[in-house]
């Protein structure tokens, strides 16, 4: 019996077998960053973009010196998984060593970062329906709500209220964009002759506001506001792989 327990304990304590590195990881470790990007991009196209793949792509893009693409990948990875360690480390590295500027998170964005925008929406929706049905069903059945139904309604309403800051933070976070082109000038007016206020580097993250005339009003990390051309920035939401700026879009 004792031997059996020891065997069981050994099985539980034994580490899980390490996953074999995929081709992209092998290429990355070997320093073939272009190869790693090609493999991971193929995986994204075939199986979809996940936080892990996007973060890995960000690392490889950064190694090749493509700050804008790397930041887009990392920001997208964080949207899918706000606790992705690779993307978090990459952004921190870009800020400290690469000179990338990123607006400080507001308290609501910090709050939203605990779970992610989609998770907050799912939680809020579920809590809303639970509370609504908890209120409706007793009335449809023409019976007084039981005690557990009342508790459920209160709990769901509490969860719904707690999810509201997360939704607001997710909304604010969604209005960010990454500078994709080098030597971008923040313009005073949304016109071709707009006076340049300050230069912004590739990879910097800005907060976006209303679009107008092919331009978007943005605010930089140090609080300067102005206009950038729409093609100069890329939003983390709404894409899989970073946009290829070398290839013009089909009309």
């Amino acid at each position, binding site marked *: 019996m004792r031997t059996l327990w020891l065997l069981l304990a050994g099985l539980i304590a034994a580490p899980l077998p390490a*996953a074999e590195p*995929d081709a*992209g*990881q092998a290429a*990355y470790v070997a*320093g073939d960053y272009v190869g790693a990007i090609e493999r*991971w991009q193929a995986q994204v*196209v075939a199986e*979809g*973009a*996940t*936080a*892990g793949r*996007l*973060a*890995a792509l960000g*690392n*490889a893009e*950064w*190694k090749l010196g493509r700050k804008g693409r790397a930041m887009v990948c990392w920001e*997208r990875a964080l*949207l*899918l*998984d*706000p*606790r*992705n*360690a*690779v993307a978090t*480390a*990459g952004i*921190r*590295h870009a800020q*400290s*060593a690469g*000179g990338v500027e990123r607006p400080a998170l507001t308290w609501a964005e910090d709050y939203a970062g605990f*779970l*992610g*925008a*989609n*998770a907050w*929406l*799912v939680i809020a*929706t579920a809590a809303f*329906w639970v509370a*609504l*049905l908890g209120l*409706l069903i007793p*009335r*449809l059945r*023409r019976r007084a709500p039981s005690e557990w139904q009342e508790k459920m309604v209160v709990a769901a309403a509490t969860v719904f209220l707690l999810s509201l800051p997360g*939704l607001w933070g*997710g*909304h604010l976070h*969604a209005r960010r964009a990454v500078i994709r082109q080098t030597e971008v000038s923040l313009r005073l007016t949304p016109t071709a002759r707009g006076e340049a206020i300050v230069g912004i580097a590739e990879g910097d993250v800005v907060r976006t506001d209303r679009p107008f005339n092919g331009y978007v009003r943005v605010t930089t990390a140090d609080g300067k506001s102005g206009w950038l051309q729409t093609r100069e920035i890329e939003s*983390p*939401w*709404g*894409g*899989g792989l970073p946009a290829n700026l070398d290839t013009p879009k089909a009309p």
Partner: protein
Amino acid sequence: MTRCLRLLACFLALTCARAEDYVSWEMTPPVAGPGQPFKLQVRIESDVILGPADRVGRELKPPKGMALRFSGQLFRANTTEATLNFSGVAPEEEGAHVIPSFNIRFPAKLIKVPAMTVNVSAATGFRREGQARAELAMPVRTYYVGERIPGAILLKGSEQEMVNGSFGLECEAEGFTFQQVGARNEELPNGQGIQTGFELTPLRTGTSEVTINGIMLVNTGGLGGFTASGRDRPFTFRRKVTVEHVPETGRPTEWTGAIGRFLAESVSVSNPKPEVGEPIRLRAILAGEGNLDRILPPEIGSSETWDVIPSNDRRFRRAEDQRSFTYTLVPRLPGKQMTPAIRFAVFDPETRTFQRLEFAPQPVTVTGNAPSKVELVSADPGAAAGSPAAKALTGLATPDPRARGLLDPGSQVVAPLAGSRPFWTTNLTLLTLSATLFAAAAGSAYLLAHPEILRRARARREVRAARRAATSAMDDAGFAVACVRGLRAGCAPWIEATPEALTQGDIRRVLPAADAAILDRIFRRADGAKFGAPSDASLQAEKPALLALLAELEARL
């Protein structure tokens, strides 16, 4: 005994040594012009309480041509220090003039003041006559964009007009930045005026006019302070200057904007014995005169031996004319290594040439084993080796493409759920359905609670049908049956009874204004056969009244 005598001798020697007085003196200005007034201050420190000096100047014998007199003394009760002030006028003859040694009598003791030398030189710029004037000291040459041009306004007085101060210094020049530096009213070396330093920095090329103006405060009463009367006197300087870019010819690739005269003062590493992968800090200090605050840090490239994090140190200490550049180096390989050299180029605007500076490589002994790759950067490069903080990681982490988030199914487009149309459509549909169900349930509950609503509605329908049947009836019997049916159906909800059970008396309870005779006739005509008293009386005359009753009933329902 011998030892005791020696100790006593040492003690006496020490006591005698302590008893020696210390006398120092200072002359303002240090070098006087011929005939220039000067001040002499003699400071005495003694080991006894001195008290006030007596008959100072009795033994004072100034050299030929020099006037010197005792002007006052400073002393505090119960202190061992004293300060004596003398006023004098320098001789007309240039050279070193010696004031011979003299004694000063204090209540406690007599102190000997050693001989003092007064240097007289015509090069001091001392003027006896003439108005106070302002002079602009600024290099006359071509300036360069980004250069720091030191300048000064010298406000020189004379014996007749002394300059006491200045204010309102400002510069009007397009394409320049202007900044005052140092003390606003710094005394000139000859003591006959003040100066105010400033810095100009050209921002663009071209020829422009620099205008500097201000106001100096002049005392017209001479050096004697009792008769002095002050007044303001403005001054203005205009100078046409040419600004160019630093020439491209001969410009080294490592030139990063430095203009001036600099030297590589020192270079140091934070830890000379790091481990492989452990960041260390390389700090280089540049010193000299020039645009230290505008220099971009020189770049050092990474190599097989070192990973280099770019310098981001912008510290600049104007007071020390120093600028430091700090780089974070991460050793990749173990062994005795040399840090990368920091190469630097400076443009000298005076000679119009470039000079190269180099911060020498520093020896570093790297311990540990060579890893397959090094990607680790410490958050605190200055932390001690081996401490947990030194191992904090902020570099790129090892990618894990299999990692997934909580709601991360892996889609082609990373789109927010909030932007999904099916999500909102489904929710809105369900919400509408719920609202409909709720409304239906609420309506149903209301009707159950108020059954008279349904009864009236049913009665209204029946009265309407009866009125139509009565209107279209071909004979009196049909008319009477339809009328009675309508009257019974219309009155039943009001008295909560079954319509078939109502009589004409019940009808009159609901319709008190109805004619009883007409109601009797119509009921007898409709129901008379049931009770054995059929009536054949014509109802043509009552038709309008009965139809009006039915209409009134329908309206009341």
